């Protein structure tokens, strides 16, 4: 871990971190309000049979309960895109992007091992994701309070919800960094990472909307982001362990691959 490199990373990302945190805070504030305002009407609409029951759950979230609306907020494309700014954008550009631009040359000319560089990047990215997820949880609390729903919220389980999100996005960030250290150009690194995330997301959403495809959900990382279950007190510990395992595998790959790669001159 290099403190100097970490400070540079922090300075270069802090404005972006602030914007993303504010955006996800706002989004998370919004969801309890939707549940409080439209939850009963939506439920009546579903019960009337106008909308097929398959559409009542989107990736494990819904708007018929506080837990469901919070889960919907986590799996919704808006929050996926916001957290991906760090979990995919930063990780893939941190090594492959800097290689392509040529700026990694002057950093690696310093007494900094590649493993130290990687470790600092990983710690930094996980910290940024942790801050963004904390902003999301803060938004949930504020939104619940504003809607008079604070009594329904299992506040003591919020830290576990944060950890669940951190493990899921940490696994994706680890995959992004593993791709980043494996390629000399940003395109392939971002392509591989986005492909993994999109396929994973597609499997989870498809399984949630189409009962015949439910068997595909365990193959998705997003399946283990179980906000509703965490808030209901039925946390799947095996799921959390699996996310940690995926992250560790990607970290292991990067720690082996990065130091032994040849870094040819940037073209």
């Amino acid at each position, binding site marked *: 871990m290099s403190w100097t490199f970490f400070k540079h990373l922090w300075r270069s990302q802090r404005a972006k971190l602030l914007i993303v945190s504010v955006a996800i805070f706002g989004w998370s504030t919004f969801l309890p309000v939707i549940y409080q305002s439209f939850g009963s009407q939506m439920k009546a609409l579903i019960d009337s049979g106008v909308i097929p029951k398959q559409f009542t759950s989107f990736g494990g979230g819904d708007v018929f309960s506080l837990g469901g609306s919070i889960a919907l907020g986590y799996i919704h494309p808006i929050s996926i895109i916001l957290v991906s700014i760090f979990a995919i954008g930063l990780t893939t550009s941190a090594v492959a992007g800097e290689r392509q631009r040529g700026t990694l040359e002057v950093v690696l000319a310093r007494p900094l091992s590649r493993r130290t560089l990687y470790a600092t990047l990983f710690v930094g990215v996980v910290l940024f994701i942790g801050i963004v997820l904390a902003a999301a949880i803060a938004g949930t609390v504020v939104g619940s309070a504003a809607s008079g729903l604070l009594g329904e919220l299992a506040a003591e389980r919020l830290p576990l919800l944060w950890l669940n999100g951190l493990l899921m996005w940490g696994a994706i960030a680890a995959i992004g960094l593993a791709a980043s250290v494996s390629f000399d150009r940003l395109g392939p690194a971002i392509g591989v990472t986005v492909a993994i995330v999109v396929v994973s997301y597609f499997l989870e959403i498809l399984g949630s909307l189409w009962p015949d495809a439910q068997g595909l959900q365990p193959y998705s990382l997003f399946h283990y982001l179980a906000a509703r279950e965490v808030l209901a007190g039925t946390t799947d510990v095996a799921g959390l362990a699996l996310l940690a395992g995926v992250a560790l595998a990607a970290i292991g790959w990067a720690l082996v691959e990065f130091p032994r790669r040849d870094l*040819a001159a940037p073209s």
Partner: protein
Amino acid sequence: MDALTTTALTKRYGHRELPIQRLARRLGRQPSGDVLALDDLSISVTEGEIFGFLGPNGAGKSTMIRLLLGYLHPTAGSATVLGRDIVRDSVEIRRRVGYLPGGIALYDSLTGERLLDYLGELTGRPPTRRAELLDRLEMSARTMRRPVRDYSRGMRQKMGIIQALQHDPELAILDEPTEGLDPLMQRAFYGILDDLREAGRTIFFSSHVLSEVERVCDRVAIVRRGRLVALEDVARLLERRKRNVELRVADGDLPRLEGVPGVSAIARTADGRLTCQLEGDVGPFLAALAGHSIVDLTIEPAHLEEAFLELYEDTEPDDGEPATAAASAGETGEAGEAVA
């Protein structure tokens, strides 16, 4: 003492070897699709000298530098920098070395001052030479407060030089350092190199601008297709190269130069001039002119460029056999003949 030594250093680019490919290589079969970027290169750079590493694009200059700094891993052979092994002690080497990459890229969003602070902090040594370098390269305090994105190509190159030398490294590895500098700044840079040499610092200088190598370097290694073609003192290299001679006599009685040691390519023109090439000691040539009324005599000074071209012409058809021109600093005298 040597600041840098390579022993049969070899780098082959290509796909990572599978066990079956490694076995095939051991049995003497060349892996297909590979590029031999550096082949069996052995050189030594003595502490306190300015060493030029010459070759055209693609000759292996950057590969050599990248091996020394740990960006690349050698396929075979070994090397030490400041007494440290390039594979095991790469981090320690980089603590003591300053490096200017060719075509340097910098963080555009940072100001010049912040960039130098950041890179200096990463190096972990105080930037003792920064103020002097900024002054000599005419980078004002106002300029340093501007973001790097506003800098011209020449200013970026100056920043590259400053970041490489600001912590007063024991060894500076400079890849095409004057690229983008105007003639005035080139002169200022040569002055900086002279001062570093006086301070006992070692400079490893890669370039294809031969005039500047001739101007600043004590010794040069010339590489071609990853192989060492020559390694010797710049002065000795110039001494050995053929100078063009043209002379005119008053009465048309041209001297007979055939058989004079060092004289070749003798030609007489219709207007009474004589041209030839002269190599080595000029004594026998001048003796042969004695007694003739010389009206005009021109001997072109030797330039490294011509010596370089001569070496390359001599070694043109070398696709088959590997070079054997490895030589070390201690063998400079013999290395003069080490032309593959």
